[in-house]
């Protein structure tokens, strides 16, 4: 028989206001095995933990139940407290009477009754707990960063600077990401390339960093400290070791009609191309869809003009398999497609563009060489209208439910830059709210209004109406004036919502990392573990976790790096001892369990058993506890009931069921 102590936390008034904690103590004390029960203001505090330790020692407790907040919050805290007092940490169970009880119920009597039942279930379970001992696993001292934008680059640099090997896998032909497409950055108006390019160069030159561009993660197996990853290096058809980056092939390539991805489709590029001049690596790739040689077998000009002999039409995709201790996801974002927003005439007029396209228009390396001009006729605009919240803050399935966060600031930036460079251009911004939390952010926006004369109108636009003369009639509303506005514009810029890179879902599935309905990766705790995925060993960097601007992204990238370094610095990790185990006497070696195990953790041994006096050799399932992650799939699949999960055994769960239904 266990000797159980029950500790009921008030959590200030969080629990005590709705749950009669004294009553819970009183009722718990009557449960079988309970020899001690008490309540305290804050069980997680030092004083609270001391009470637990004291009770363990004085009452010689063999198991404890803490009725408190979610185990996802403080299970480790209380396990630690128990261990320090000499109790096996796996003899601790938590009854979640806060998130699952006091916070969602208002009636004290009802909430108290439920809290008593939850406590009872935890007591019933702990009665059947057995001490467990974690095993150990090794840590591969190498990190993988998925995504080579500013988030991935910063994370990789920070990890590498701490002395660990890092690989960056980037899908496109160059690292740099969205930031490389930006012209200037807020709130200081730094040139984006001027601050990004040095980081790209540093990453490329770092002896601890390996960059795989034009590559994708294909497969991930293993677990924290010991992931195995297949990386597909797509064929570039150019030998990176031979290529000198002279660019002659791109000049001479006769197929020049492909839309430039880097310039958001606003101009064209050759079939053999580097996305932009500062690309890293400065090695072109051949777009097989556009290459005449690839399509017809004729041409081959790039190969002929390449003095280094680097062009290789026979190159094949290559799979690289590597082991990692930690993985950082930094897959970034894209702007949403605007096909659902034809009232803004994006598909009908070339002069309606997204803000990211405007970045390219404003950039010296962009389609207009940095001159602000209409894409339809090359004319210099006199009136520009910006429309905010296009596809953000929507509840109608057309757009995204969230605020994209960066648009208010980049629109102020665009407005200011345009007014600064072209004082003859009038700029009007239609906004719903101007949201500028951040250091020097609101001041920045106010400068746009006060110093640069940008006209901000509170109200949304209903329709952008192309006119026969090529102008755009913007039909909007001024809510403060209560007037409908018809404004003629030469260009309209849409602050288009951002969304996680569409590939992230596939990557999340491979990593078994949680993802939300908007395709943002879920952090382990919204406040306290914002850069860690709930999946151990997987960390989050940048917009893949939620909308962010550059400074926030860089900060989070550093934080993710620190978490990864903290993991890589360890030589060994303690493994979860809640693993599966087969009862030798019940197992008949049928292999059903091995077939459902996603980790290949189950093998079979010929083993001599003593079945009630009969000694015989049988084929028996053996679980490798270093590989087993404790999901329990095998326990249900096992036809003879031999397989059970330690810490969540059949008897324990049934005891909980019984306690709840009693």
């Amino acid at each position, binding site marked *: 028989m266990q000797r159980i102590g029950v500790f009921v936390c008030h959590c200030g008034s969080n629990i005590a206001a709705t749950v009669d904690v004294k009553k819970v103590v009183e009722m718990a004390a009557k449960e079988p095995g309970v020899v001690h029960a008490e309540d305290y203001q804050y069980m997680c505090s030092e004083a609270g933990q001391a009470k637990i330790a004291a009770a363990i020692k004085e009452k010689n407790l063999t198991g404890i139940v803490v009725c408190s907040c979610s185990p996802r919050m403080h299970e480790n805290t209380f396990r630690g407290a128990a261990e320090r007092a000499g109790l096996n940490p796996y003899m601790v169970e938590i009854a979640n009477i806060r998130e699952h009880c006091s916070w969602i119920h208002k009636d004290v009597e009802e909430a108290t009754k439920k809290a008593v039942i939850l406590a009872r279930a935890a007591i019933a379970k702990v009665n059947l707990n057995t001490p467990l001992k974690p095993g150990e696993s090794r840590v591969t001292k190498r990190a993988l960063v998925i995504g080579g934008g500013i988030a991935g680059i910063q994370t990789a640099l920070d990890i590498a600077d701490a002395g660990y090997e890092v690989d960056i896998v980037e899908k496109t032909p160059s690292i740099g990401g969205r930031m490389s497409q930006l012209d200037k950055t807020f709130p200081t108006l730094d040139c984006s390339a001027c601050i990004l390019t040095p980081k790209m160069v540093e990453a490329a030159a770092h002896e601890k960093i390996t960059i795989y561009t034009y590559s994708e993660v294909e497969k991930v197996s293993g677990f924290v400290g010991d992931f195995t990853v297949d990386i597909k290096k797509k064929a570039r058809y150019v030998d990176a070791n031979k290529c000198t980056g002279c660019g002659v092939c791109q000049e001479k390539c006769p197929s020049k009609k492909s839309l430039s991805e880097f310039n958001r489709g606003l101009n064209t590029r050759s079939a053999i191309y580097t996305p932009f001049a500062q690309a890293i690596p400065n090695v072109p790739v051949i777009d097989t869809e556009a290459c005449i040689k690839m399509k017809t077998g004729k041409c081959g000009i790039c190969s002929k003009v390449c003095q280094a002999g680097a062009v290789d039409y026979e190159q094949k995709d290559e799979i690289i398999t590597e082991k990692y201790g930690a993985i950082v996801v930094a897959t970034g974002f894209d702007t949403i497609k605007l096909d659902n927003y034809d009232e803004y005439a994006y598909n009908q007029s070339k002069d309606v563009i997204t803000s990211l396209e405007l970045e390219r228009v404003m950039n010296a390396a962009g389609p207009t060489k940095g001159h602000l001009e209409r894409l339809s006729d090359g004319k210099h605009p006199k009136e520009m209208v910006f429309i905010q919240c296009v596809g953000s803050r929507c509840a109608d399935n057309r757009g995204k439910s969230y605020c994209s966060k960066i648009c208010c600031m980049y629109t102020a930036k665009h407005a200011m830059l345009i007014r600064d460079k072209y004082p003859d251009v009038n700029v009007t911004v239609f906004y719903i709210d101007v949201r500028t939390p951040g250091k020097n952010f609101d001041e920045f926006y106010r400068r746009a209004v006060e110093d640069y004369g940008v006209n901000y109108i509170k109200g949304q636009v209903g329709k952008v109406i192309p006119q026969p003369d090529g102008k755009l009639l913007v039909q909007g509303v001024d809510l403060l004036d209560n007037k409908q506005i018809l404004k003629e514009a030469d260009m309209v810029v849409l602050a288009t919502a951002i969304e996680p890179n569409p590939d992230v879902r596939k990557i999340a599935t491979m990593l078994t990392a949680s993802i*939300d*309905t908007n395709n943002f990766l879920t952090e382990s705790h919204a406040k306290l573990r914002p850069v860690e995925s709930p999946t151990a060993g997987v960390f989050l960097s940048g917009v893949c976790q939620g909308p962010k601007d550059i400074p926030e992204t860089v900060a989070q990238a550093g934080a993710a790096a620190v978490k990864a370094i903290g993991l890589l610095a360890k030589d060994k990790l303690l493994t979860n001892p809640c693993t599966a185990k087969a009862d030798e006497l019940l197992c008949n070696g049928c292999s059903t369990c091995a077939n459902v195990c996603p980790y290949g953790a189950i093998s079979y041994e010929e083993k001599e058993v003593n079945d009630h006096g009969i000694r015989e050799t049988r084929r028996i399932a053996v679980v490798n506890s270093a590989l087993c992650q404790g999901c329990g799939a095998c326990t*249900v699949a096992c036809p003879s009931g031999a397989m059970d999960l330690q810490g969540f055994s059949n008897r324990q769960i049934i005891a909980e069921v019984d306690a709840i239904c009693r």
Partner: protein
Amino acid sequence: MSIETNEEFRPKIVAFCCNWCSYAGADLAGSSRLAYPADVKIIRVPCSCRVNPMFILRAFEKGADGVILCGCHPGDCHYSTGNFYARRRMTLLFSMLDYIGVENGRTRVEWVSAAEGVKFSQTMNEFVEKIHSLGKNVRLGDLRCKN
């Protein structure tokens, strides 16, 4: 044996929630103060695939009026494939239960991610309402348990 008078029917509902998605979704419902009836009691399991049909039968045997199993969305399982096993097992179990008179409405599988506190609360509200409409579960109860 408790004598059923005109007392309001308070169903007993067991919710199995996987540790990674649904239990976290329930926590989020809690921290967001999204209420649902106290009749729902949650049991934490590592994965929806840990839920043995036996547990559900046991719950009904012991007097539960409804059992709901919540796991990660298909494709998002922390253990890659656990929820697929759970889905298949429950489909079979529920049709068998329906056959022996435990109505389909008393059992439910729902995918709730860690970010879906709202969905968790809504699901529980709906489920409790459904159980209310079905009334007390009289099948499968183990008479030996009554005294």
